[in-house]
């Protein structure tokens, strides 16, 4: 009876041992592989000496400074050869108007590229402002999660990019994006979106939309560098992001954003 019990115990112990070994044989190579990847990414240098792992880019947008001139929309299209027709935007501007009877009117004629028209029926507007929008460069991007082939991905500096050669045009990412920031290019059939002007920022320039913003409503910077306009922006303002409940962790921060804006 006793013997039996102890051998049963030994069996159980063996089983647990083997089980743990089996687990380790799966997990340890995984950990080593991940460490190896982190090490490799740390040594990754792009053509002009830019090291992605040393940066972490973000954008700040101050709603109370935006004049709705639409120059950002225009510059974005010209910089990135985005199709001129409406409906294709990497960035666009929305106008919000709050009415006395609690109604809200939101519009964005042609993405705001030709600015907006003054309305004659402005009497019952109690508050009104512009909201520039673009890809939020989520730190936890749903579009990357759903891509079946790894054609959209997050680089070491936090920017979400699209591989033009590899994209199938299946539109999963367009469906997955909660911000409507992606579109299918009508000719190339690639799911496009804002890249924070990746080709500019690696050269030390601002994205085109930030470059042309006349009132500094848009601020761009490196979140890892303490002396940057973006860090001041984060220090001095009440910030919010779009749809925080989705845990996408956007890196586009809005100052003075109304809760009605999503």
């Amino acid at each position, binding site marked *: 009876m006793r013997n039996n019990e102890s051998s049963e115990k030994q069996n159980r112990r063996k089983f647990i041992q083997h089980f743990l070994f089996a687990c380790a044989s799966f997990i340890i190579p995984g950990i080593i592989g991940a460490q190896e990847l982190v090490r490799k990414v740390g040594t990754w240098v792009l053509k002009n000496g830019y090291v992605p792992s040393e940066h972490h880019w973000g954008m700040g947008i101050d709603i109370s400074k935006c004049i709705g001139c639409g120059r950002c929309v225009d510059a974005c299209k010209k910089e990135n050869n985005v199709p001129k027709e409406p409906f294709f935007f990497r960035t666009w501007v929305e106008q919000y108007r709050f009415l006395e009877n609690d109604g809200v009117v939101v519009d964005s004629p042609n993405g705001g590229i030709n600015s907006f028209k003054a309305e004659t029926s402005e009497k019952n507007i109690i508050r009104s402002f512009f909201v520039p929008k673009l890809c939020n460069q989520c730190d936890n991007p749903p579009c990357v999660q759903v891509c079946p082939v790894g054609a959209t991905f997050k680089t070491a500096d936090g920017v979400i990019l699209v591989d033009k*050669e590899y994209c199938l045009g299946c539109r999963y990412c367009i469906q997955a994006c909660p911000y409507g920031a992606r579109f299918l290019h009508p000719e190339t059939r690639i799911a496009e979106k804002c890249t924070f002007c990746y080709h500019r920022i690696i050269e030390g320039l601002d994205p085109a939309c930030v470059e042309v913003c006349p009132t500094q409503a848009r601020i761009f910077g490196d979140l890892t560098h303490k002396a940057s306009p973006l860090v001041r922006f984060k220090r001095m303002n009440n910030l919010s992001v779009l749809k925080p409940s989705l845990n996408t962790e956007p890196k586009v921060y809005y100052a003075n954003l109304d809760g009605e804006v999503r």
Partner: protein
Amino acid sequence: MLSIWKKIPEQIKRLSFLVILIVAGYLLISPLFIPPDFGKYGHFRASAVEEIASQQMNYVGHEICANCHEDVSVIKSKGYHKNVACEVCHGPAFLHAEDPGSATLEAPRGRSYCTLCHEYLPSRPTGFPQIVAISHNPMKPCITCHDPHKPEPPVTPKECSACHATIARTLSISYHIYLPCTRCHETPEKHKINPREFTPSKPSTREFCGGCHSIDAKSDKGIPRIDLATHGHRYVCWQCHYPHLPEAK
């Protein structure tokens, strides 16, 4: 060993053969489709980043213009348009900066370009200079009176509506229509030239409004009266009445 093999049902053997075939086929063929640098730095093609990074630039940035157009840059850096980048008005200039002879730039000389920023819109933030183009010196291009690189109004605007258009319009349909802005805001003349440095005052006490509206105030007879001691509790008046559109409802 052999006995185990015998015990396995026939259909499983065939099925496992099929599975092995598929797995082997996948292992053989997939390298042909997966680019060699896929997965090097993460679940993506490493060279895609290089490709995106080498995209052709169209906007060169505002700094380089000063190399060849020092005169304009110096003028602009002192005026209201100091934060308006050159390429906002002149368009993308990468090629021009490389070879100014063959890639020339246009200048927006018409009225319609300036109004993208300066046309009156109620959604624009208060303080931003705005005009109503159809009534602001119509027919003449803006640049006949305003230097686009240093756009000063030829005379300092008299009206607060130049920069506070929405408030002025609201006030003009309110009971306070006959009160000039300066009755409630002591405004230094320099506010109209350098608005953020010289800010106007704002009323700060209940007695300020009481000066006209209190029962014992020596003001015009037609003005509606309240008892300053009891009306509106301890709140300042503009917590309930928007001063630019005061309503008693």
